[in-house]
Structures are given as structure tokens and as C-alpha cells.
């Protein structure tokens, strides 16, 4: 489990401010982040593994500043994107999962073993040698999860992982995210996904407007929407 700290973090894209003076300390195992489109929640999680560098303030993971120790931080933080198509790198399912391990100093046998285990865990064994781009949307997101989890990161950050999925696959991914032993940080519009989480943070116009238990935070968010 990682200890992630945001201190006075602000960020803007051009003239548009997306995060303003955010202070957060994330230590719980399951953390949900909700908010309207454009509220800054995706930028917030992209700061965690250095995909975005804050214009002011600092983000640290286990005491390491993300900007300065990006390589170490990215080994601890696995990132799942909204569109799994954009994160598939290799042509076949097995090759894509194995790709994550290629620069980890493992030998071929270890890579094969861990890849096979990851594919079995996510029910992708029978598709191992199939072209990744021909999988269904749900299977692609499972592949994205397998490709990230095979590296055994301490934390999984998922940016709207269920947005492009049908109801059955939303349930499948949400059940998976509930049972992972890792720390899980999920940005989502599917509020039921985070109802059982330890903590839910509501972002509105770049600011944290609610932070606490799912009941309290989701009630605050629903009040905002009303």
C-alpha cells in the first residue's frame, strides 16, 4: 500500500485552471474519486504517476516526489486508462501482458510463468494467442488490468475504467477492483462502484468539496447534482 500525498497542488491547462490548492493524503486501500466531467479528477490521478506535472505544489508517493523519482513511482503505481484500446501495445494478448515485464530484468521463463498466471487470473487464457484488438470491450479492459497487475504494483489507479463497458462488464470489473489486494484508486461516474470503498473524494471545479466515507461523500455529490 502506498502513501500518496498532495500538498498545495494546483494545475492549469492554458488559461483554464483544473486543480486549485489540493491537499490530500491517500493511505486507504480503496479510494473513489467522483466529480462532473472537467472537474479535474482525471488530472488529479494523472499527477500520481507523473503523467501530468503540477504547476505548483508537490505530489509524493511513499515520500518520493513524483517528478524526481518518476521511474520508481511508476513501478509502484499501475495505471488503467478509460479506453483499453489505447493501452494495448503488442499484437496478441499474451505478448501484451508479457510486454510489461520485458524491462524488469526477468528471464524468459519467469516472464512466461507470470504472464500465464495473470492470464488465468483474468480468464484470458483461452485468448492468449488471439489478436488483442479483436477482443470485446470488457475483455480488453481485463487485458489492460492483467497487463498492469502482472508487474505487481502496490497501487492501481484506474481512470474511469468502466465508462466504455456494458452493464455486465461494469459489474465484472467492479467486482475485480473490490477484491484486489492492492491499494485501488478509482475515478468513476458509476457511483455504485465506490459505494463499498473506504473513502470517496468529490472534486468540483478543481477543488475537493467532499472527502470521507462513501455515504457522506456520495450524499454530498448527489446534492451537488440536484
Amino acid at each position: 500500500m502506498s502513501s500518496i500525498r498532495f500538498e498545495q497542488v494546483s494545475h492549469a491547462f492554458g488559461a483554464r485552471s483544473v486543480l486549485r490548492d489540493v491537499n490530500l493524503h491517500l493511505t486507504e486501500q480503496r479510494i473513489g474519486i467522483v466529480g462532473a466531467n472537467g472537474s479535474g479528477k482525471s488530472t488529479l490521478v494523472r499527477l500520481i504517476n507523473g503523467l501530468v506535472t503540477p504547476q505548483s505544489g508537490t505530489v509524493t508517493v511513499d515520500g518520493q516526489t513524483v517528478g524526481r523519482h518518476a521511474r520508481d513511482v511508476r513501478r509502484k503505481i499501475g495505471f488503467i486508462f478509460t479506453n483499453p484500446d489505447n493501452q494495448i501495445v503488442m499484437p496478441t494478448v499474451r505478448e501484451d501482458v508479457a510486454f510489461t515485464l520485458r524491462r524488469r530484468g526477468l528471464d524468459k521463463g519467469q516472464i512466461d510463468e507470470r504472464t500465464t498466471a495473470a492470464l488465468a487470473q483474468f480468464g484470458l487464457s483461452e485468448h492468449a494467442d488471439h489478436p488483442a484488438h479483436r477482443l470485446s470491450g470488457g475483455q480488453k479492459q481485463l487485458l489492460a488490468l492483467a497487463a498492469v497487475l502482472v508487474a505487481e504494483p502496490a497501487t492501481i489507479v484506474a481512470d474511469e475504467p468502466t465508462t466504455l463497458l456494458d452493464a455486465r462488464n461494469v459489474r465484472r470489473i467492479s467486482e475485480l477492483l473490490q477484491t484486489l489486494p492492492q491499494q485501488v484508486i478509482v475515478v468513476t461516474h458509476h457511483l455504485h462502484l465506490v459505494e463499498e470503498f473506504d473513502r470517496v473524494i468529490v472534486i468540483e471545479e478543481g477543488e475537493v468539496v467532499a472527502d470521507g466515507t462513501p455515504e457522506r461523500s456520495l450524499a454530498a455529490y448527489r446534492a451537488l447534482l440536484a
Partner: protein
Amino acid sequence: MIGLYSPGSSFIHRAPTLLKLFLLSLCVLLIGTSPDLRLIGGAVAGVVLLFVIARVPVRAAAGQIIPILFILLIAVPIQGLLSGWLVAALMAGRLLVAVALAALFTMTTTVTAVLEAFQTLLRPFRRFVDPDRVGLLVALTIRCIPLVSDIVREVLEARTARGTQWSLMSIAVPVVVRSLYAADALGEALIARGLDD
């Protein structure tokens, strides 16, 4: 190479990729320069035998070879009339064997194995090129073909759904814009997966 790999455990599947590449090149060179129709006939029989040994699905194998038959259907009569039927038969045999061998290679070799082979080949030139980066470049190129083809299909569908008239700009602009967004997203995914090391 996109989705052509046919899993199997034959000795052709298990043979070292560099050896397969070398034999493929050697065979194509020999057949390409041989004026002996009997040798080419033997090569055709040999290729059929290799397909049987590799146990690749007949439909997948036919999918690779049939397109070349259509080309031969036009090229052989022209060649026969212009240069004689022996030359036409030699040309048809050479093309068939070369395409079939290349198809057998792609159907029995994973992309990862091909990349690793290229990286091994490039290792002596490490001072001038980074073999890992070249390997990644090739992998991404292969991966981007279905990605861009999906983008083009979606743009064409959207154009049809909106009932707009055909124009190059109405296809090119969204395809280019969406391809750039996809490239950005892929870049982010590579960084997130530790590829900026």
C-alpha cells in the same frame, strides 16, 4: 503479422526465429534465381509438406495464399504471351513458393519472437541504433495498423450515419485528429507502463 499467428507446438513453431528467417531468405533466393522448373515443383511440394507439419489451419493458410492466385490469374497469361509459357510458369511458381513460405513464417512465429530476432541482429550496431527502441518501434507500427483502421471505419460510419456527401476532407480531418489523440493516449500508456526508463 497482425493476428496471423497460429499457435502450435510443431518443430517449425519451436525453431529459432533467426534460423527460420535465414532459411526463408535462402529459399527465396534459391528459388528466385533457379531456372529449373523441376526444382520449383519440388519446392511447392516441400512447402505443402511444411504446412502439413506445422498443422496451421487450412482456412488461415488459404487466406494468405489465395490473394496471390488472383494476381497470377492476370500475370501468368500476360507473361506467357509476352515471354513464353516456361517463363510464366517459373514466375508463378517462384511467387507462390515465396508467398507461402513467408505466410508459414508469420503463422508460426510470434511478433515478440520476430522483435527479439531483430534486436539480436541489431546488437552489433548498438553504437548507432538502440535495438530495444527499434523493436518497440516495429511493435507499435504493427499495433497501430488495426488501431488506425478502426478509426477510419468509425469515421466512415459516422459520415454515412450523418448522410454527408463524399469528400476527402470530411474523412481525412477526423481521421488525422483522432489518430493524433490515439497516439497521445498510447504515449501516455507507454509512460505509465514504464517505457520512459
